[in-house]
């Protein structure tokens, strides 16, 4: 499943490409989906492209990305590629890993 906010892309500027691997509607996966959706809306406005992959539906995609566990969030672009494991409930930590907080930029 892909969720692409095209408006944001067209609006110009740096666009974030995120890919979230989930396992169906399992509790951590559900939580991760909600958390990433909220983060995207709050932090990246319309400048992101979120791709959600259900490993039950697309097992090969997970292998191709070297995903070992779900939920796993991969920041595909802009490089460098970043992988965040877990249900993304620690917002600070996630933002930091995605270089969305000032400290790491």
């Amino acid at each position, binding site marked *: 499943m892909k969720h692409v906010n095209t408006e944001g892309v067209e609006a110009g500027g740096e666009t974030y490409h995120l890919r979230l691997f989930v396992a169906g509607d399992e509790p*951590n996966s559900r939580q991760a989906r909600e958390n990433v959706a909220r983060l995207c809306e709050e932090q990246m406005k319309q400048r992101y492209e979120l791709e959600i992959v259900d490993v039950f539906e697309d097992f090969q995609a997970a292998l191709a990305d070297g995903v070992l566990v779900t939920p796993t969030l991969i920041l595909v672009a802009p490089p460098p590629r970043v992988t965040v494991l877990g249900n993304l409930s620690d917002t600070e930590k996630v933002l930091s890993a995605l270089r969305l907080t000032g400290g790491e930029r």
Partner: protein
Amino acid sequence: MSDEKPTYEELEARLAEAEAVIEVLRSQQVDAIIGEEHVALVRLKELEEALRVSEERLRSLFETMAEGVILIAPDGQIIQANPAAERILGLQRSEIETRNYIAPEWAILCPDGTPMPPEEMAGPRAMKEKRPVKDVVMGVVRPDGSISWINVSAAPIIDEAGELEGAVGTFADITERKQAEELLELERKRLSMLLETFPGYIYLQSPDYSVRYANRYFVEHFGEPKERLCYEVLWGRKEPCEVCPTFEVFDTKTPQVWEWSQTPDGRIYFIYDHPFIDSDGSELVLEIGVDITDRKWAEEALKLRVEQLAALSQASQVVTASLELDQVLAEIVSLAGRVVSSDYTSVVLVDEAGNTSQSAENLPGVPGIEYRIRDKGLTRWIVRSRQPAIIDEIGEDGAMTPDLGEGAPRFVNPPIVEAGVKSVAGLPLMVKDRLLGVLYLHSLHPGAFHGQLPLLTTFANQAAIAVENARLYQETQRELAERKRAQEELRQSYVNLQKALEGTVHALASAVEIRDPYTAGHQRRVTQLACAIANEIGLPEEQIEGLRMAGLIHDLGKISVPAEVLSKPGRLHDIEYGLIKAHPQIGHDILKDLDFPWPLAHIVLQHHERLDGSGYPQGLSDGEIMLEARILAVADVVEAMASHRPYRPAHSIENALEEISQNRGVLYDAEVVDACLKLFTEDGFTFE
């Protein structure tokens, strides 16, 4: 990734990656793990929860379950025990958990009550054999001495490496069940014994001809019915019987009783059939049979005996009803056929000298056998021994060898053989100790008289009594005839004697009258009146006869008085009167030595005696004078007065009667006087 050896950075990155994975796993934020070929879901929280719940359930189960549970270490030490174990074993958990499974404190019993060796117990066996062991029943002696019977199952606990970690044992308290089972077993045994020792057969008949159950009696008497059909077992038939009372119960569905007499084992059974619903619901017939053969035979024997006794009773009446010997013998021969089943009968009578006298028989074709007593014959043997002889079997050659002991005859009787006789009974006819003869019974069947001796003896005794009665009757008849003849002879001689006596008396009377013409006829006339008076008074004929004889010679004594004195007219001198007065005494003296059947001498002696004692010669008074003399006195006076005498003329009858009337009861007997008066005044008596 790649076959190239990874760089340090790469290894570091992978390590970081692995650490991250571990960390996220620890934080339980992982749903699934992606493997090479599949996705594994990870639900640790739920797993933990499930584990906890499961553990709790198990704990609860362990604590509350009715079965006892113990955990055992490999050395047999009990590690854990649940409350049920406490309850069942009668021990505190703390006590149990310090004991070894095979510790000597336990007293464990086998089901039969003997001590159970540890190696037979479920736990040690499960650990030794490394497999579950089920349902080992044992008794545990509780501290209070009672026994808990438990059914133990045990399973070994083996770790992943295959090492024995111990065993778990579970056990249920089956004390009550065992007691119930023992009771049930006792009941079953009792029921089984009842059925097996029942003195009759019990079996369950199925409509498909199979025998659903049969007790031992049935098997012993009719054969083993397993896997066979009823008609095969009982009759060796290939098809069902045409008629079967047992099967009728399937139709009627009502109980019935009957007697089974045509049986495979030859016995007679009283049968009770009852509809029976088997434990599986199928309709059967329960049949119980009791052997009543002996009872039936006894009944038959009794019936026969009663019939024979009735016939015997009837026979005794018939036989004793006749008194003619020939008729009695014929009756005995005829009755023997009906009463003692004799086909041919003979009776031979033997007299006191031991010779045959009279006989009767009904042997066909052998009329009127001349019975003789042969030296070595059966009749002679019976007459001598006075014993009955029963010969059950006569040989083809007619030889009879009765089992009679020492000196018994062995003989051949051709007429009997010709008549087809097969068995014989010879019975002595005895009355008290006297032998009258021999009764022979013959039958066309062998052994016809076997065991019949009491009846035969009774019959022979009846026959003997009838014969004896007939003989006694004949003798009595003969004696009666003889006595009658003797009496007639006696009477005739008496009549002759009477005539002779009368002749004598008349001769004597004539002798007196010849000498005394005045008294001629006096004695006859006095006799006439005296007999009339005696008749009037009612004297017996015999006494009147005596009076007649006495009257005819009452003045016999006058024979000694000189004739001139007797016929002297005028008064007599005292001496002359004395001579006259002596005549009664003289008459008496003449007569007293003569044998008369009457007291003539005494009548003559007393005929001048008077009631007041004024008479002569003895001067007897009232009670001393015999009646004949009193009658004679009255008749004498009346006749004398009415007759002419040499010394006076005759008086009239009236004067004579006047005389006796005046002296009635004084000189003369009042009754005699009355009778005399009546004769003259009423009956018109006159002297001839």
